[in-house]
């Protein structure tokens, strides 16, 4: 895999959003088209903050973050929004769904807001996403009625309803169960085959060995390339 980096971090310092304390320092990392990255590390090492920083959601303490070649620190609002539309993000622990909206409306929101594609196709696209996530029967429910496992699937479909080039996921397999793990690996494998770059933050490398091809671990405030067992190279 080669080509221009879709995400590039140059000497980036990742901060804890709440306290402003540096969690990971001197990060030099890039992801290109079609890569499947797994970023590991012990709980509390800063994986989630690192992922949010790589997605441009958290401001780095220092260094340069480039999304699709654009330096986010100096990019216009229009460019930043255009970058975010090319990038999907799935938050941990239930995916941070919008509790006032139904499951179907959560998935449809990015489509309606950005008016992506022809309006006549939107219901079919939402229905297809619901069917792929095995959520058709609960489409009318509010997220609070679902288990965290299903909420996480809604969050994935919300991130994928507009075609993305990079998909970042924070601990997607927590509480998924054996069937759930297979489902996630299937869906993410499909995404990778269509050329989407996938970046997963996790504290367990084992489920990802069949699909991932790049590995790194956060250890001692550093992001280090690693083998599939999580041992730094």
């Amino acid at each position, binding site marked *: 895999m080669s080509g221009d980096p879709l995400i590039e971090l140059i000497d980036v310092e990742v901060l804890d*959003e*709440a306290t402003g304390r540096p969690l990971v320092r001197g990060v030099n990392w890039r992801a290109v088209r079609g890569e499947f990255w797994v970023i590991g590390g012990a709980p509390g090492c800063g994986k989630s903050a690192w992922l*949010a920083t790589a*997605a441009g*959601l958290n401001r780095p303490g220092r260094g340069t973050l480039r999304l699709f070649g654009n330096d986010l620190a100096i990019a216009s609002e229009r460019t930043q*929004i*255009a970058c*975010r*539309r090319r*990038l*999907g*993000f799935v*938050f941990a622990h239930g*995916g*941070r*769904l*919008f*509790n*006032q909206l139904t499951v179907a409306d959560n998935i449809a*929101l*990015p489509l*309606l*807001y*950005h*008016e992506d594609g022809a*309006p006549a196709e939107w219901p079919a696209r939402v229905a297809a996403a619901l069917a792929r996530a095995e959520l058709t029967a609960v489409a009318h429910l509010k997220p609070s009625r679902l288990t965290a496992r299903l909420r996480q699937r809604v969050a994935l479909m*919300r*991130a994928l309803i507009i075609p993305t080039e990079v998909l970042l996921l924070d601990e997607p397999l927590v509480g998924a169960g054996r069937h759930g793990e297979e489902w996630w690996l299937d869906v993410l494998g499909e995404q990778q085959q269509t050329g989407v770059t996938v970046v997963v933050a996790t504290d367990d490398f084992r489920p990802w060995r069949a699909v991932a091809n790049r590995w790194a671990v956060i250890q001692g405030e550093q992001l280090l390339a690693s083998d599939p067992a999580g041992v730094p190279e």
Partner: protein
Amino acid sequence: MSATGILPGLTRLYELGAFTVITLSVLVTKRRQARRVIGPLVTAHLWRAGVRQLPMTGFLGLALGLVIIGQTVALLTKVGAHEYIGTVMVTVVVRELGPLLTALVVLARSGTANAVELGTARALGEVEALESLGIDPVHYLVVPRVVALAVSVFCLTTYLILVAVVSGYLFAFLQDVPLTPAAYFAQLNDVLRWQDFVLLGLKTALFGAVIAVVNCYHGLARPLQIEDVAEVTSRAVVESIVGCVLVDAVFLVGYLLV
């Protein structure tokens, strides 16, 4: 007030001003964007802040008619000054009590709900989720509330004033005040000027906007934990009331000048 109390107050005022400018800028620059999402949100907030407050506002209009107009009419008639009924009515109900009372109803029923909703959304990370989807949180969460509350306070105030005017006359009639409906409404017509309508519209829309902006600011402006929501809501209520009174004071000067 000590210097340590003034500085945070000024900082809050500055932040609130900046939040207001950002909201206005988004309101203008994104007015044509995402109408399929923002339109239904405005309708939903109009329903909650406006239509659903009609019974409570009607009840307060009746109470205002009884307390202010009924009592005043009876009192003025006793001293033979019932030709001032229209003046009292316009000054007290149309210019002052009607807008302020309506703003308090909307603040209590809808403004606080906004602060709780947005504070909870902030604490649960929904704001970051919106940003991750390329959705401007101010456009999605704040703009519909500002538009809906501005329109709601204006419409509800008009409704409250109409109820108060009619019920006030009914109470006066029940007290055998020698005043015909034609004379009563003629007095109102004589006292009301076109500036009253313009200033009433501006003032009530501003009350609604102040309530919405202050509550949204407290819900969204800084990272919150779920346990902080109650505190920011109560702070938002106090600052909304202060904001409305300050706007009222500015309009009082306006009334004196025109």
